[in-house]
Every structure is written in C-alpha cells, then in structure tokens.
C-alpha cells in the first residue's frame, strides 16, 4: 500500500540529517536550520492526511496557541538568555513525549512496542521537570547553588526505581502494586519528581552540560514514542538527536574537564575550604589608567566571560576594539570553550557585535601567546581564568583555563568583589600583576573608550 505521508516522512528524515550536517560548519550553518525547517513543516502538514485523523479543529487550535507562545518568547528573548530558552523548549518537547506515551498507555495501543511507551513516559517526564528546574536556575528565579541533603543519591535512585516498578505493574497486572488505585498515577508523579530531584544538586556552572544531556534524553523519549505509535520518522529523528546530543554532552563535559558522572553526582560549587581564612587584598585601578596602559601596549588580549554577556557589553567591546585598532594595536580575543553559560556562547555574542572570527582565538593557541602579552583585559570572566585550577586541592582542579595570569599586566573588569559561578574564590584577583577595574562591564568599557579618545 502506498502512503504519501510515509514518503514525506522519509524525505524529512533525509533533510534533517543534511540540515544537522550543514549546521556543523560555520559557512553552511544558517542554511542547515532552514533545510530542517522546511522538512519539519512538510512532515507536520502531511500528518493531517493520515486516514482516520479527527479532532482537526482542536489540533489546529493547539498549534496556534503553542506557535504563538514559542514564537513570541523566542523573538523577544535577549541573546544572553538563549541557554535557558533552549532548556525550556527542550522541556516542552519532553512533556509532549510524556503526554503521548500517557495516551498510548491509557488507550492500550495495538503496537507490538507498547511496552516502550513506558520508556518514553519516564524519560519525557524527567526531561520536562529537569529542564524546567534548569530554566528556573539559569533565569535566576531559583537559587543557583546546589541543593543537597544526606543520602540524596540513594534516595533519588529509590524514587526512579519505584517509578519504574509502578510502570511495570500497570503494564503487567500480575505484578502487585499494593494500591487501591491505578499504578499509572504514582508512575507519572514519581517520574516527574525524579526530574526535579536529579537537577536540584547541580550547580549553575555545570548547567550547560545538564541541558545538553536533557536534550539528548528528550530525543530518546521521542524515539521510544515513535515505536509505541508506530511512527518511524519519530524513531529515527529521536535517535539522531539522542546520539548527537550525547556526543555534544561529552564534548562539553570534556571541555570543562568534568565527567558526566561528576556533573550529575558531584554537587559542584558547594564549598571551597582552601582560602576562607586568608585575608588577601585585591588592588583596584581606574579606567583612565587602564586607557593609558593600553594605549602604549604592544599587544592586547581580551578574555570575555559571562559578565560581558550579563552586562550586554559586547557592543562596547566592539567599540573598544575599533578604537584600539585605529591606534594600530594588535588586539585578539581569548575564547575559553566553556566561557559563559554554554560552549561557544562567547563566539555567538562577539559575532553579534560584529567582531571578526579571525580575532577569536581558541584556548590552546592563545595560551602559548599569553606570556608575551602586555595587557590582558578580562571582561567578566572568572572561573575560566582562575589559576586555582592548577592546584590539586581546588574543586576546579584539572579544568583547563586561560593562562591570563602569565601576561605582563592583567586588568579584571568585575561587577563586585563576589565569587564566580562555581562559588570559588579566584587567586588571579590577588596576583601581583593584576589590577581590578570594578563596575558594570558596559559602563566601565565606555569610560575606558572615553579615556582612550582623550589620549
């Protein structure tokens, strides 16, 4: 039997793969998402031609509501908030996967793969609540520090096991649930609770890795649903994302020198006992003095971090770059792979301000040049330039860092005297060659530009 919609689904899958492939290269990246977008639109429209589809007005209303919410939120959000937007969209996908699995389980679908709906339900639910917690933490609507309690991991695993047990008890009535009501209720509730519990002990610095992992999980949930609804477009697309997302997660964790295991169970950023009792003094400097220092420097390297993103200072940084270049100074940008809230976050923001790619230099390459650099300007970066990472007793130990402390002069632009995202004090601030330039990154750089104009 020939079904046009199946043919379109196959074509859509081919375009998804081509789209993902194109998104992996800077020159073709934009066309990649557009190819995938057209394929998605075709797959959605053709789904209405499946024989027997009813409730069409209800479906269209749902699409109109969801489309309006998704479109408005995505167009209004600032570039800085992209990570949490990805998190919440991912959570919505997980929620949809869980809801589809719920219908399959309740309705007793005829598919030979009905049992796999259990997987879609658990993973989708975990992705929904886990992504929501990640969103709330990154958005600052929830405390970013890890929430821990005794026997946390055994307790979490118990919740997950209980959820799986009730799920099996629902599918196979011979398994006793010991409940007066259907075990499907505790099954879903415990899955949702596990998603929250799993994300609570994870600190802000590890959040990108977690979002990427939840993204891969949603892919898996969609693949499971694909089996239970006998829709192979969902199986293949879901597995694609599951595998691609896992690779991205591993790459991100590796860039931070953290294992997935320690991200999930480490409660990173909880404490640093090393220097709590040491009274160390950070020396401050004024913008005008920094202007003079830069004007007569041979080489300048700018190391941006999340502080630049938070202050929306990337446009000021571009102005600063222009004025320094007009004085024939060599300026480059040191890009730590995980500076900001996501790998590549800094590249995206700097590109937004119109800073050329050739000036953005990867960590390994720039670290060789830092010892011969006159001035390093650290704009709101903290953990990624913390020399404590070289000390074996630091929680940051082993994380690759930008060796800015080896430059002749280090200027650190920082909002206040607080700690970094990981909650660890920064040895760099107390170094002999470091001067602190306190204030909002955007305002401070504006003052710096003014002082350079006067010279």
């Amino acid at each position, binding site marked *: 039997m020939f079904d046009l919609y199946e043919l379109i689904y196959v074509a859509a899958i081919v375009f998804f793969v081509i789209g993902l492939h194109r*998104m992996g290269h800077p020159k073709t990246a*934009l066309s*990649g998402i557009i190819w995938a*977008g057209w394929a998605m639109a075709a797959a959605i429209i053709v789904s209405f031609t499946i024989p027997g589809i009813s409730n069409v007005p209800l*479906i269209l209303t749902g699409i109109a509501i969801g489309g309006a919410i998704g479109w408005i939120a995505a167009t209004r959000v600032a570039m800085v908030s992209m990570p949490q937007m990805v998190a919440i969209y991912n959570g919505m996908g997980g929620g949809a996967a869980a809801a589809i699995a719920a219908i399959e389980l309740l309705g007793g679908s005829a598919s030979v793969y009905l049992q796999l709906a259990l997987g879609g339900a658990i993973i989708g639910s975990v992705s929904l609540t886990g992504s929501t917690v990640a969103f709330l933490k990154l958005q600052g609507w929830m405390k970013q520090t890890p929430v821990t309690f005794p026997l946390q991991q055994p307790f979490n695993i118990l919740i997950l096991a209980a959820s799986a047990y009730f799920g099996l008890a629902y599918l196979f009535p011979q398994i006793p649930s010991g409940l007066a009501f259907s075990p499907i209720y505790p099954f879903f509730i415990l899955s949702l609770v596990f998603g929250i519990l799993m994300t609570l002990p994870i600190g802000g610095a590890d959040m990108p890795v977690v979002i990427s992992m939840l993204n891969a999980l949603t892919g898996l949930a969609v693949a499971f649903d694909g089996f239970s609804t006998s829709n192979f477009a969902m199986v293949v697309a879901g597995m694609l994302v599951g595998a691609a997302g896992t690779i991205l997660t591993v790459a991100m964790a590796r860039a931070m020198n953290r294992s997935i295991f320690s991200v999930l169970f480490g409660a990173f950023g909880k404490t640093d006992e090393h220097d709590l009792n040491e009274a160390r003094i950070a020396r401050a400097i004024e913008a005008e003095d920094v202007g003079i220092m830069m004007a007569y420097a041979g080489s300048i390297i700018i190391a941006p971090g999340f502080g630049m993103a938070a202050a929306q200072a990337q446009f000021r940084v571009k102005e600063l770059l222009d004025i320094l270049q007009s004085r024939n100074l060599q300026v480059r940008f040191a890009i730590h792979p995980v500076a900001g809230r996501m790998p590549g976050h800094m590249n995206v923001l700097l590109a937004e301000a119109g800073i050329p790619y050739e000036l953005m230099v990867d960590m390994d390459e720039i670290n060789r040049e830092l010892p011969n650099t006159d001035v390093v300007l650290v704009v709101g970066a903290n953990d990624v330039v913390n020399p404590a990472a070289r000390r074996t007793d630091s929680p940051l130990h082993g994380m690759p860092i930008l060796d800015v402390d080896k430059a002749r002069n280090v200027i650190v632009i920082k909002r206040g005297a607080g700690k970094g995202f990981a909650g660890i004090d920064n040895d760099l601030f107390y170094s002999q060659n470091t001067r602190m330039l306190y204030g909002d990154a955007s305002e401070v750089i504006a003052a710096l530009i003014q002082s350079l104009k006067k010279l």
Partner: protein
Amino acid sequence: MIAEVWSAVYIVVLSAFVGYEVVSRVPVILHTPLMSGSNFIHGVVLVGAIIALGFATDNAERIIGFAAVVMATINVTGGYVVTKRMLKMFEHKKKEEQDV
C-alpha cells in the same frame, strides 16, 4: 514479532550512528547552535502529538493530547526561531567579508 524486533534494532543502531557521525568533529563555536538545532529536530514529536490527538476517542485523551500538541508546537517554533537567530549572526559576518 521477532522480525519486527530485529528491524527495530537495525533502525535504532543505524540512526544513532548517523547522529554520531554528523556532529563529531564540529567546532566549539557551533556547539550551542547545534544543541539548539537538535532541540528543534526532536520537535518532530509534534507529528506524534497530532496523531495522538487525531485518534483520541474520549475527553481524557483529548485533554492530554491537546497539552501534547501545545507543548510540542512550543518546542518546534521556539527551537527553530532561537536556532535561526543564533545562526543568522554567522551569515551576517560572512556577507560583510564578501563585501570587503
């Protein structure tokens, strides 16, 4: 039954392999857009949500199916717009270079 299970195993293994191949060796600068792009692609869950609601027979199923359609559409639209916004900046840069 056995044949169906094996064809399922083939599908899973091959599509996971394609996913692995497509994103390995991607430059760090594209990690965030690619995560967002793959986030968009699992928005294909909307197809499943349409089918689930399309074949819903009672009100409980209709309510859950409607929620699934709304959430899946947020995933698809939001994922697409956010990814495109991020990647537009790459395009912008490229054009400027060509102009010079």
